């Protein structure tokens, strides 16, 4: 049985339905990428898992437990941490405090601590006392990832980690992923940069309009299929 899986997941914003029966699965230690056009529902999927949106019970299972109806703090305590879209650093907190707040709800047993994060992203150590928002976009993204890791999660959900970042910075950030995987964590990433997604993921889901339209391992997916799914040209 997969570590984390959704079955026919639906999600709503008021009357607006954003997800229509999404099935995905994530195994222990695996990295999965979710790609798709703007508004496809990728973020909604992660928000559902992390408890930011409450779902119909029974549609999300983690480690054999039903979590669809849990609130975000409870989900975190079970070991699912999220790096939200747009980084969402706390402006009133310094870099180090932003990292420390990641430990507020769960410490977990694992390798990650302040020093570990500073080893992973050395540039953060130099700027630890600055307000988080004074950093460049890439550095902010590093803080956001570090903050997620501080709770030593079993699953790390990353929404659009390369959003709006220069390619070099994206490379630095992705260089960290193997080290994160090495600690045994499973990862879900959402990525606009298809090339990056294919490089880092064990498996890929492509979403469109609230549904999974394509899935498979990077090797089995052709670039054309993905492009088609991505831009919706021949999707139906």
């Amino acid at each position, binding site marked *: 049985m997969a570590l984390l899986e959704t079955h026919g997941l639906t999600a709503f914003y008021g*009357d607006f339905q954003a997800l229509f029966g999404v099935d995905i699965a994530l195994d222990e230690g695996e990295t999965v990428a979710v790609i798709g*056009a*703007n*508004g496809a529902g990728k973020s909604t999927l992660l928000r559902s898992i992390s408890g930011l949106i409450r779902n119909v019970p029974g549609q999300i299972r983690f480690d054999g437990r039903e979590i669809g109806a849990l609130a975000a703090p409870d989900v975190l305590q079970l070991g699912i941490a999220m790096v939200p879209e747009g980084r969402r650093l706390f402006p009133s907190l310094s870099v180090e405090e932003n990292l420390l707040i990641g430990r507020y709800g769960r410490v977990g047993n694992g390798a990650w601590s302040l020093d570990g994060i500073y080893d992973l992203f050395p540039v953060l150590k130099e700027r630890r006392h600055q307000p988080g928002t004074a950093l460049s976009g890439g550095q902010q993204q590093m803080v956001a990832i570090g903050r997620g890791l501080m709770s030593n999660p079993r699953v790390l959900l990353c929404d659009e980690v390369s959003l709006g970042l220069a*390619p070099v910075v994206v490379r630095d950030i992705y260089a960290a992923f193997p080290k994160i995987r090495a600690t045994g964590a499973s990862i879900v990433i959402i990525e*606009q940069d*298809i*090339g990056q997604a294919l490089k880092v993921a064990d498996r890929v889901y492509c979403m469109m309009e609230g549904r999974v339209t394509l899935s498979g391992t990077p090797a089995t997916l052709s670039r054309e299929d993905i492009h088609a799914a991505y831009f919706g040209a021949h999707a139906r």
Partner: protein
Amino acid sequence: MPILALDQVSKSFGALKVADGISFALEKGEALGVIGPNGAGKSTLFNLITGNIRVDAGTIRFAGEDVTRQPPMARCLAGVGRTFQIPQPFEKLTVFENLLVGGAFGSRKTEKEVGDRCADILVETGLYPKANQPAGSLGLLQRKRLELARALATDPKILLLDEIAGGLTEGECQELVETIRAIHRRGVSIIWVEHVLHALNSVVSRLVVLHFGRVIGDGDPQTIMASRDVREIYLGIDV
């Protein structure tokens, strides 16, 4: 004389430079597309043009007049119409009333004078069946159409469209393209920020590429789409 001209426009949010010496001009009746990665500063550029955000430096001229220090309502009255990327409807008003606000205030007329035109715009944008519902009850796609309709109601000389095609099906997308073309044919200048490139390219005759608040490309769509920068930075296709 260009209808809109930006000269060395700059804006930072704290340490983050979102517009870094942007200069370009738009001729009357031209349709311009703006592309660039997320966070490149496209929506911010719109906010600077409309006055919702004040520039740090540089000048913006509209129809020959310096509007850099003018508030948004003045620019709207002068003829700048816009949509918001995240739709901003007047939620408690009906769809029709949303347009009436735009019509009555945006073109300095009475409600009576603009009523018919607003109703026609509702038909044109396909919102007519929802006319008397509160805008808060609309789904996202309809909200985006409402953005377009409300901007049209202000009778703009230039229309700024921010990602209004995202999430449409092929057929809907085609319809939208037709609508925008029709607007363009009426002599309205257009700037369109869009990630759905095939839709964008079937309307615009020129593309500007933004990256980190800088213009890194400006020219006709074929050349731009073929350029190395765009393929690498924007499409994420290895060159």
